[in-house]
């Protein structure tokens, strides 16, 4: 498959008809149980028990997406510029988990390498007596031990235990672990925010967030820190995957947040999710391709891998920040102290519809279906506001949410186009950040925290242009179980709650799939690549 440039996958197509709305028995999660684990006593007081409606002085209406506003896009938002994914850092694997799966291209045999040495004993019994076997086994053990010791010798230092604050967090400039995020910090006028403070937080697991009630608070876990250079460029690293693994929810999703601040420019968050694989320590994008095996340990001695986020963050000019000039170039190896953020739940909103998949057929002789099953993951947009008022939110990155049940959508037939939607609950949070070099800032985030189930199909008015085609035999079935995400601007219908619809990425994990069944010879075409490669959207054609 040739690597293909990600492109906007289709012309705008607007849903014009809601076909069905069927909730399964899961319903929405209980929002009344208090969670004390993430509500330490030192958390700031929340906007206590604010009502669901009218919390911002505005009467809320049920969410409804303007049909004309639904379009696939990778456009930056007003407050943030989110760039496309950069190539994963394939040069890293987890040395802390030295089980490697290796395929021999000549034999097709998969071999499991544990502890650095592969034992091959079959076929030897006929030519050796027990004594020789014992000696050989002993030699093997010695070889394995030496290999393990060699690995240990070059492993990273013992993981730093999670810290309540940033004090003691090692600056990214002194780490050689994989890059988790990079980009530029820009001022509101577009100029570089030189030496801006940048902190990487991990949110509590969604499983914990969905149990919070208005008034509950929690402190974000700082897992990385950096200082932008004179051009505003920053690079964030995490000292060890052990720092973030406790933040993974039951679907393996970890939601990160980049916080950046500069004098007179306020602070601003940018969220992005990663799916954590505890067996390898690797972190992949939702809907992304898992990192490939690398050829071996890297020079840094780090073996875990992560698909890095590229985010250019534009700081809002809130006028509230004053203070001393940030000083000091990046690269300090001393501990950093850039502040910390606490959050409190302001409002539990009801569920909002979100596109999680799409299929199209412009011909006859084809059926197509989408299944959203347990463990599926979606990446939904986040909203950010300085005031929290209705209509004041702007997009600020994405958050990941996994499903805990399944939705099987009806089979679609000849000439049908379908957007498959399910519902996610989301909440408004009040965020208070304390930075020793700036005044305390208060702002608001709106983000999805749990899957609420429900199934709905919308009918777009047309199918996207798809030019990468393969011929499909009558009787053949093509299934795609994962695809690189495309972003639907306004695909998350929460405008009735916060004033804007948020984006959604319709990449899905291996637990969701699209399937095309052909009863006649037809073509299956991708909008951005061949169906067997990375097609983005699939369209059945004559």
């Amino acid at each position, binding site marked *: *498959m*040739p690597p293909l440039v990600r492109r906007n996958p289709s012309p705008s197509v607007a849903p014009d008809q809601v076909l069905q709305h069927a909730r399964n028995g899961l319903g929405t999660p209980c929002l009344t149980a208090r969670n004390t684990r993430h509500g330490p006593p030192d958390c700031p007081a929340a906007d206590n028990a604010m009502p669901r409606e009218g919390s911002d002085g505005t009467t809320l209406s049920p969410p409804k997406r303007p049909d004309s506003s639904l379009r696939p896009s990778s456009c930056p938002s007003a407050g943030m510029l989110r760039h496309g994914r950069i190539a994963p850092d*394939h040069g890293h694997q987890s040395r802390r988990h030295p089980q490697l799966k290796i395929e021999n291209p000549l034999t097709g045999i998969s071999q499991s390498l544990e502890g*650095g040495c592969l034992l091959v004993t079959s076929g030897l019994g006929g030519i050796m007596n027990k004594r020789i076997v014992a000696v050989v086994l002993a030699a093997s053990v010695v070889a394995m031990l030496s290999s393990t010791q060699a690995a240990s010798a070059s492993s990273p230092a013992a993981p730093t235990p999670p810290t309540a604050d940033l004090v003691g967090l090692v600056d990214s400039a002194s780490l050689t672990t994989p890059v988790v995020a990079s980009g530029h910090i820009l001022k509101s006028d577009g100029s570089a925010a030189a030496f801006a403070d940048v902190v990487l937080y991990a949110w509590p697991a969604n499983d914990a967030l969905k149990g919070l009630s208005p008034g509950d608070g929690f402190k974000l876990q700082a897992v990385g820190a950096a200082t932008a250079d004179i051009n505003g460029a920053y690079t964030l690293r995490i000292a060890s995957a052990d720092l973030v693994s406790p933040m993974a929810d039951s679907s393996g999703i970890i939601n990160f947040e980049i916080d950046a601040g500069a004098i007179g420019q306020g602070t601003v968050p940018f969220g992005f999710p990663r799916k954590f694989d505890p067996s390898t320590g690797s972190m992949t994008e939702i809907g992304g391709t898992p990192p490939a095996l*690398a050829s*071996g340990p890297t020079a840094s001695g780090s073996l875990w891998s992560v698909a890095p986020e590229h985010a250019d963050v534009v700081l809002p000019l809130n006028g509230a920040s004053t203070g001393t000039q940030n000083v000091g170039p990046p690269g300090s190896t001393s501990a950093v102290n850039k502040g910390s953020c606490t959050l409190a739940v302001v409002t539990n909103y009801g569920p909002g519809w979100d596109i999680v998949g799409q299929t199209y057929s412009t011909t006859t002789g084809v059926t197509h279906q989408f299944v959203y099953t347990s463990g599926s993951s979606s990446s939904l947009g986040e909203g950010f506001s300085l005031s929290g008022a209705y209509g004041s939110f702007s997009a600020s990155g994405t958050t990941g949410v996994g499903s805990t049940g399944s939705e099987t959508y009806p089979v679609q037939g000849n000439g049908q186009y379908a957007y498959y939607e399910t519902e996610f609950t989301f909440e408004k949070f009040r965020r208070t950040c304390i930075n020793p070099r700036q005044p305390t800032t208060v702002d608001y985030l709106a983000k999805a925290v749990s899957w609420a189930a429900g199934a709905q199909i919308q009918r777009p008015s047309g199918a996207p242009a798809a030019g990468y085609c393969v*011929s499909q035999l009558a009787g053949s079935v093509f299934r795609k*179980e994962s695809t690189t995400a495309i972003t639907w601007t306004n695909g998350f219908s929460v405008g009735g709650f916060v004033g804007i619809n948020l984006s959604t990425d319709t990449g899905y994990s291996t637990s969701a799939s699209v399937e095309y*069944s052909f009863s006649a010879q037809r073509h299956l075409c991708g909008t951005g690549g061949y169906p*067997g490669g990375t097609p983005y959207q699939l369209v059945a054609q004559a």
Partner: protein
Amino acid sequence: MRRAILVLVTGALLASCASTINTEPVNTGPLGDGGTPGEECVPVDAKSPSAVIGIDALQNTSNETVTIDSVILAYPKQLKLTSVLLVPIAQHNLIGVALTYPPPQGPEPGVMWDQRRPAPGTTIAPGSLTENLVAMVTAEATTAQAAGLIVSYHNTGHRYILHTATRIRLQVSPSVCAP
């Protein structure tokens, strides 16, 4: 004699260790990343349980010519690879799946079937036409499958492995592919 055997066996073990540690990079070379996971299921007749699978495209994105060393099935189960071809593609249509090829009406537009050649040993120049990787496979049981194709290739000084992400399944009649 025993000492000689011991030396040989120990050497074999050490060689095994070395060969497994120094594996080639998978899906990071100039022929792409293998795509995203999926499955292609093709029903075949019991009397002639073979199919043509041409759903993968190769394009050399580097500035060096690469040479295909071998193509094998990944984790085959009752599925046999009889031959593998590279077919230049002038447009954006791949051969896809068929029982035999070319069809009676001739190859699809843009499929340069007359320029097909065996994949092993074939070179792909930088920026050349897209090559359709076409595998001829035969089922040896009612259900035969493989976890894609593994393409081993190299350029000057580097060896790579491409593992295509689409599984292949042949379902022998009267079985059907539909779940």
